[in-house]
């Protein structure tokens, strides 16, 4: 276990509305360690955006504590809180850039707030825009930039005050897949090169898979499951975790009665035609229900769900075959999608 940078203890948040109290978060306990990329995933409305806002007190928790670097956030004065917020950068789904300022002006903004003189602020902005790969867009206004470029400016802006933590609220949800990949790569680079802890809020499992070390799954206002990303991805225990791990092509109704095998490709096996070979070897057909694999550097990554033959012996043989190839395989019959 590394050193904790953010500790959330017994946190609850409820809002008072016309129809009475609505609990958005209840009894949240989380420890985020220094230098890690921690993911918080959940369906929309699960309360994850409120949770990240409780970390920097944009939302005041109703109960419980948030410790940042050992300091109780709720006990800070207004002035101290503003100080502390400068060591927590934040980026948003809608970028939230100042539309009437250039890219450079946006990056200078938090430095101006902190009272830095203009010349130093501009110099720092120049370095940061270079870091995010937008050195040539310093004088462009947000309206002239693409979504990915806007998010890069937002990242540069969030890094301006040398934060220890970067909070990302659905930072890639408004971007197309290619741009998402490049923004995620940038975030990973920032995490590794600058040693900034990153908290990723998202509803996309692919984002978690791609860059997070650990993940917490939040469902109906509480944490359903949390742990290392590999563990959750390979063996999702709770129903909500299974829902998130099987993306859009989640198992169909046929799954219920027939036994199925879920094969996870974690990069340990070479990219060989496993299923085809298995079918030839066992001399029995299988039905591919779901497949999502990628070839990265000659290694197979992803997962596949196949429907097994009724014959128990044959089915067992197939499990053995797959496991002997260094793949993880599990039975998923009984799973209701």
């Amino acid at each position, binding site marked *: 276990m590394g050193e904790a940078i953010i500790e959330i203890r017994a946190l609850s948040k409820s809002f008072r509305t016309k129809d009475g109290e609505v609990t958005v978060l209840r009894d949240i306990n989380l420890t985020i360690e220094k230098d890690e990329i921690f993911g918080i995933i959940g369906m929309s409305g699960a309360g994850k955006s409120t949770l990240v806002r409780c970390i*920097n007190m*944009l939302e005041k928790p109703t109960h419980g504590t948030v410790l940042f670097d050992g300091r109780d956030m709720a006990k800070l004065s*207004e002035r101290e*809180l*503003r*100080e*502390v*917020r*400068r060591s*927590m*950068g*934040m980026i*948003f789904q*809608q970028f*939230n*850039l*100042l*539309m*009437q*300022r250039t890219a450079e002006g946006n990056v200078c*903004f*938090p430095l*101006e*707030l*902190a009272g830095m003189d203009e010349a130093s602020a501009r110099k720092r902005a120049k370095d940061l825009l270079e870091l995010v790969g937008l050195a040539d867009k310093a004088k462009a*206004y*947000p*309206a002239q930039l693409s979504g990915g470029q806007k998010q890069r400016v937002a990242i540069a*802006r*969030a890094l301006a*005050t040398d934060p220890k933590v970067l*909070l990302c609220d659905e930072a890639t949800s408004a971007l197309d897949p290619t741009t998402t990949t490049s923004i995620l790569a940038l975030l990973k680079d920032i995490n590794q090169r600058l040693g900034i802890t990153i908290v990723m809020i998202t509803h996309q499992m692919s984002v978690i898979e791609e860059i997070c070390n650990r993940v917490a799954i939040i469902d109906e206002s509480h944490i359903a499951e949390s742990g290392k990303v590999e563990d959750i991805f390979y063996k999702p225990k709770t129903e909500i975790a299974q829902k998130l791990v099987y993306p859009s092509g989640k198992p169909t109704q046929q799954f219920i009665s027939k036994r199925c095998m879920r094969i996870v490709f974690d990069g340990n096996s070479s990219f060989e035609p496993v299923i085809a070979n298995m079918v030839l070897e066992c001399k029995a057909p299988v039905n591919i229900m779901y497949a999502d694999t990628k070839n990265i550097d000659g290694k197979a990554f992803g997962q596949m769900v196949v429907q097994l033959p009724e014959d128990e012996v044959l089915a067992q043989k197939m499990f053995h075959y797959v496991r002997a190839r260094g793949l993880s395989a599990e039975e998923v019959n009984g799973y209701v999608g």
Partner: protein
Amino acid sequence: MWDETTLNLLIQGVGESLYMTLVSTFFAYIIGLPLGILLVTSAKEGIRPRPWLFKTLDVIVNLTRSIPFLILLVAIIPFTRLVTGTMIGPTATIVPLTLSAAPFVARLVESSIKEVDVGVIEAAQSMGASNMQIIWKVMLPEAKPSLIVGCAIATTTILGYSAMAGFTGGGGLGTIATNFGFYRYQYDVMLVTVVLLVLIVQVLQGILMKLAGLSNKK
């Protein structure tokens, strides 16, 4: 009609109208701008919610806005005399014009600032901005183009009111129009004043809208 006296009268009228309008607009913003900002910040969803303050300001603004200008003009004559020492002429008219326009300006400012994306304000808060910094560095600069459009509306409305004040001796083109058209039936002079008013509106509106367009980077 085109003797030198009339011409000089018209030139003086244009000067007086512009003087009343611009000075009143200036003072109306001195009162209305902070009032508008307070209406936004003290509202329930504002950056510093103060429900009782919001309610009070809201009621005051609504009440003062519903008093017809001519009635206000007459009703505050003692106050006008106290401030300017007179109750007729352009300087005296500035007092009721300002008082009447200030709540209107407050509403214009309020609606302009409300257009600023709440996400941007939240981002500023996440960077440790104080409320004052949010007002000066986020709300006002981000709302600037819309504030200038509001200013164009305010200025031309005030010009219209200033002409109305001419009926009670307020000076400017309004007084000329009343004296010639209403009392002496010299419609040609009255028509010229109306044309001049239209021209002033066009010019003011044109300049401010151009300015708003130039300042908008969105």
